[in-house]
């Protein structure tokens, strides 16, 4: 299935916040979770995830914390903020109304 990149761009914040809202996650985990949950539907350049996460952090919708791993590496975990939860709730309601209207107009079930 092909989708417009503009459609994905407009939904990136909602998609990322939905994943982060479930559990604190790190970048690579987000890529894997996204692939699994969308059943391979969303394919994107993984590196572009990080500017999107930074944007969310700048908007104070998420915060990040570094954790040291036993391997000596460091992982940056993302946590949703109260502001982020509220934003996500609003976006979900907006999406629900929008998709319902599109389905009604297009005659989709």
């Amino acid at each position, binding site marked *: 299935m092909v989708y417009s990149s503009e459609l994905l761009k407009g939904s990136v914040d909602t998609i990322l916040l939905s994943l982060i809202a479930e559990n604190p996650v*790190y*970048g*690579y985990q987000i*890529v894997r979770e996204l692939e699994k949950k969308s059943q391979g539907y969303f394919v994107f*350049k*993984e*590196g*572009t995830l*990080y*500017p999107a996460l*930074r*944007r969310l952090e*700048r908007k104070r919708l998420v915060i990040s914390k570094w954790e040291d791993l036993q391997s000596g*590496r*460091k*992982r*940056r975990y993302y946590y949703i903020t109260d502001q982020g939860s509220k934003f996500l709730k609003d976006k979900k309601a907006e999406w629900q109304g929008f998709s319902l209207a599109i389905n009604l107009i297009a005659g989709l079930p």
Partner: protein
Amino acid sequence: MIADSWIERIRGLLELSSSQKEEVLCELSTHLEEEVEELERGGLSGEEASIKVVEALGSTEEIARELNQVYAHGSDKEAILASLPYFLSFLLFSLGLEENMGALIFAGGTVIVAVLVGRTARPPWVLTWMGYSFVLLFALGFLLWDIIFPLALAYGLLVISLFITKVISVVREDPYLIPLISVPPLIFGEWFLEGTPEFKPLTVLGFLALAVLCSIFIMGGRRAKLIVCLTQIFVLSLILGSVGTAGLWALPAITMACLVLREARVEQH
């Protein structure tokens, strides 16, 4: 090797402060290494896995461009916060309230904001407030000078060393940020040394100019930051020149300009 050169390409393209750059590269390196390891467990060779992961991560130019954009531009709120101390100074001096209780409350307020915000994180806008909080610390030294000279000397040296330590940490992070923290103490330090003379109207307007420049600095991209940074140093020189008579004020301004221009040259390369 392939993964390392991908990271190095990104490093060369990022126009961020050194701490921001290290954080971004650390996060990307961890992603890259973990994905390579997973593919290797799936049976690919190290080189095959690296090629696949680098391909999945995408264009270094696109990622660096997006990251540079995200980091470069501060919000309207941050711009207002950064310029607020200068704007309040402009109001205090233009209304002749600099020796009023309001000035003391303002100075005390800058210390509280600088300590509270600077303790947990250090967004660039708080550097102006930190600079102003040093003004109060210096002012206390000048007050002590007339009362207990040896104590004032020890206190002065302590505050100066604390100020230099802060400036060095800012230089290490990003030399473009130096004027934000250094300009207020230099202006007021010179003002105290000259015996707090009345500011000329044009000097007072200098505070307004610095407020505008701070806002542009916070909101602008990297190139705008360089121009604003040098303009701030120029305005500082004009203000110091109009307040003092000694030529000593030129030294910190020239040092700042050199550091900033050096950083700009390094970035170009």
